[in-house]
């Protein structure tokens, strides 16, 4: 029983990581209708910025905020300088561009910071932890929930959030109601970058920082977003927790660790086949 | 049901979360007729078309086409049965040329499959030649010669509508569903369209169900008109009768008509 509970909670902890990267994906998807394959690498890079600052003596939360600002600006810059050029390109060309960015950022990070794993500090007091969940894991879940609330409120209650969704869906009509589409896209990239940075900075103390740190996580982040519904922040967050827990339980009790990723894959496909917009996603109807 | 009834719709109801789009609609369309379908916006006309195309499944009611029930037939088999349509808001294959769009319309009458196509068997070549000939005829009929090999994306709305009509005709329908074919046409062009619809009906011996807000067109081309309002049938009869029906005037035509 103890072990079961333990598996459950440690699944939640992993789920927190997946959820936060899933949120970043929801953000970028809502804002641009693209899935950014370089999202994980951008996040990793921002985490390195935070680490570099911390190592240089900057207090943790200051470094955290600076890294977020960096991630935001980098996201905006990437949109303005690179992605912008592909406004009218077919979606697959954009996918290739994202993959190109993934390679570039990964490579630069390896070059600047080496490929060796390094420790990453946690801001949460050790006393918080228990046998089942470490202090950092608890803190991280909390941060994920706060991020979720912010993202949700942003889309749900601010005109900016609505305008951003509109711009992604129908740029031409958006311009006709006075939305500055270019800036919306850039802003979306910036915010997604910042959320991704939160995810990476929270994940780094657990998985350690290295240029490939997000490779595994990003996949689960995708899974989370798909499972929950890529147009719904709640969905992505809940999806993340579900994937984390399901993966642990399946690995520990059902199929063994060898196939747990495959199980996650099957779960996602089964869910999508029965609910194409994900568990909590809005189904979008096309009519003629 | 009269013996020459091609299409017979009985008590068809369609609901979407909280909206009743069609509410127990019944009427018949006789073979060879042009039947106008009118009604205010949102009355359920396109919804009815979508039921006939089997894109929607009614919550209640039956539809018979040539005496056989339609509602058990899969959507992709409808064209083969002989029901073709155009779409109110256009549904062309945007990267294809006009000719290719028309060829897709003929799909229901092709026998080729993956294997025979990959090997380009003689039967495939023969069929290809036949289809090409038929497409050419339609291109001529609808005066699309000038744009036959142009991608449809760059055409004007009215031309696109004509391409849709050609595409629907390529399927050799017995029943042709036209959803607002006169959209965006000016006075002259509507007149031409009226002649065209009549000619098509006579030449190709088909039955037409026509949704249109252009009264001039509907009333002059139709043998019979059905009026819907809020998903319910409010009138049914000759153009003259429907035109003067007080309910139709109140709900749809207004005083100026």
């Amino acid at each position, binding site marked *: 029983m103890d072990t079961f509970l333990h598996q459950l909670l440690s699944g939640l902890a992993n789920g927190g990581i997946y959820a936060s990267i899933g949120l970043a994906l929801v953000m970028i998807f809502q804002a641009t209708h693209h899935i950014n394959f370089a999202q994980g690498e951008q996040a990793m890079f921002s985490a390195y910025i935070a680490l570099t600052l911390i190592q240089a003596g900057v207090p943790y939360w200051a470094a955290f905020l600076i890294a977020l600002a960096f991630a935001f600006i980098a996201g905006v810059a990437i949109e303005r300088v690179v992605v912008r050029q592909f406004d009218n390109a077919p979606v697959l*060309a954009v996918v290739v561009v994202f993959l190109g960015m993934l390679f570039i950022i990964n490579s630069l990070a390896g070059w600047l910071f080496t490929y060796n794993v390094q420790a990453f500090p946690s801001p949460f007091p050790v006393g918080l932890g228990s046998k089942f969940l470490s202090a950092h894991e608890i803190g991280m879940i909390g941060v994920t929930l706060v991020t979720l609330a912010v993202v949700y409120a942003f889309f749900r209650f601010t005109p900016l959030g609505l305008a951003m969704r509109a711009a992604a869906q129908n740029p031409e009509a958006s311009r006709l109601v006075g939305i500055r589409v270019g800036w919306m896209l850039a802003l979306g990239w910036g915010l997604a970058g910042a959320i991704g940075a939160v995810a990476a900075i929270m994940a780094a103390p657990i998985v350690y920082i290295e240029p490939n740190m997000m490779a595994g996580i990003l996949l689960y982040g*995708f899974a989370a977003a798909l499972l929950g519904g890529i147009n719904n922040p709640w969905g992505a967050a809940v999806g993340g927790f579900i994937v984390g827990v399901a993966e642990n339980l399946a690995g520990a009790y059902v199929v063994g660790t060898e196939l747990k990723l495959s199980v996650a894959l099957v779960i996602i496909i089964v869910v999508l086949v029965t609910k194409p917009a994900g568990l909590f996603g809005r189904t979008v109807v096309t009519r003629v | 049901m009269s013996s020459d009834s091609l299409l017979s719709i009985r008590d068809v109801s369609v609901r979407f979360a909280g909206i009743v789009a069609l509410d127990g609609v019944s009427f018949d369309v006789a073979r060879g007729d042009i039947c106008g379908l009118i009604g205010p916006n949102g009355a359920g006309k396109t919804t009815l078309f979508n039921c006939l195309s089997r894109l929607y499944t009614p919550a209640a009611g039956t539809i018979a086409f040539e005496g056989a029930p339609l509602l058990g037939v899969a959507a992709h088999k409808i064209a083969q049965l002989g029901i073709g349509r155009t779409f109110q808001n256009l549904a062309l294959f945007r990267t294809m040329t006009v000719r290719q769009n028309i060829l897709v319309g003929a799909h229901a009458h092709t026998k080729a499959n993956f294997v025979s196509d990959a090997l380009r068997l003689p039967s495939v070549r023969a069929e290809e030649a036949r289809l090409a000939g038929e497409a050419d005829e339609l291109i001529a009929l609808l005066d699309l010669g000038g744009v036959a090999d142009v991608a449809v994306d760059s055409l004007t709305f009215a031309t696109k509508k004509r391409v849709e009509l050609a595409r629907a005709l390529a399927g050799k329908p017995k029943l042709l569903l036209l959803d607002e074919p006169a959209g965006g046409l000016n006075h002259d062009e509507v007149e031409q369209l009226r002649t065209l619809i009549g000619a098509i009906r006579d030449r190709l011996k088909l039955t037409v169900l026509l949704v249109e807000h252009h009264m001039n067109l509907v009333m002059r081309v139709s043998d019979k008109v059905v009026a819907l309002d809020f998903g319910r049938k409010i009138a049914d009869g000759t153009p003259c009768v429907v035109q003067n029906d007080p309910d139709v005037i109140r709900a749809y035509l207004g005083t100026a008509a």
Partner: protein
Amino acid sequence: MTVRTEPVMAAALPKAWSAWQATGVVALLVIAVIVPFAVSSFHLLQLTMVVIYAIALLGLNILTGYNGQISLGHGAFYAVGAYTMAILIERAGMPYWSIVPVAGIVCFIVGFLFGLPALRLEGHYLALSTFALAVATPQLLKFHALEKWTGGVQGTFVPGFAAPLGLPLAWDQWLYLFSLGIAAALFFFAWNLLRGSTGIAITAIRDHPIAAKTMGINISLYKLLTFGVSAMYTGIAGALGALVAQFVSPDSFTIFLSLSLLVGAVIGGVASIFGAIFGALFIQFVPNFADQISKAVTWAVYGLFMITFMYLMPNGIAGFLKVIGERLRRRRNS
């Protein structure tokens, strides 16, 4: 949610060839046949890989380019083809040439089956599910219950053979010609298929599924068959690839392979038959080139190449050449 995969340029379906084009293709084929006698065995190896990748990319292109179903996981089908080759040679002792069609059929079935859930998945959902498939592939190949056949984490060797009929050719040379012959046949079939009514139908599904259905196209069936055919092409490429590498192992078929295939298909030119050849040249040669430019940031160089190519030719190399060709023709006419 709608995802547009087609190039902005219209009318991507192949048309009948002009005399010019036909001559070009024949000339190309003649050159391709002479090549093995003119280049070193290493360059021949690379060219063989180009031919093989071209088949794989063509398969992906049929699915993603023409039918609009995005796959980020075609490496999985490549792997299935490769393993079919390895297993049937090693464990069943079948002659390699007879395994090529078997691998095609196996992959057709696998692709068809994977197409079943894919029917319900659209756009990004499909893309990400296939992505997950690609990530899971090495693990499935390692799965211990299958180890008896797959060789598990160790992988399996694939032997080389002598050229048939006593032809005075080295295995490398023969393998190149063998692959080239298969590629030529497969390209020919694809070209027939795509310009025939099947090609028009699968493209119609991509452009407007609802309208396609109303035109009488059985969308589910066509999508499944397309998935199957696509997987078959890529699987045949995988089978040939195993003969070239003479070794298969889970690590040979990581996500990177799937991504490379997608990159090749897009850079070569989506919804273009000959784009597959350009794409194959890209994924075969550009990474090596990047490696030569910098050891420290190889990937950054490669990524830069990808982005630059897409920037200069958003519709891929084939799309770019087509535009150039049209411009030349217009100039000649005017």
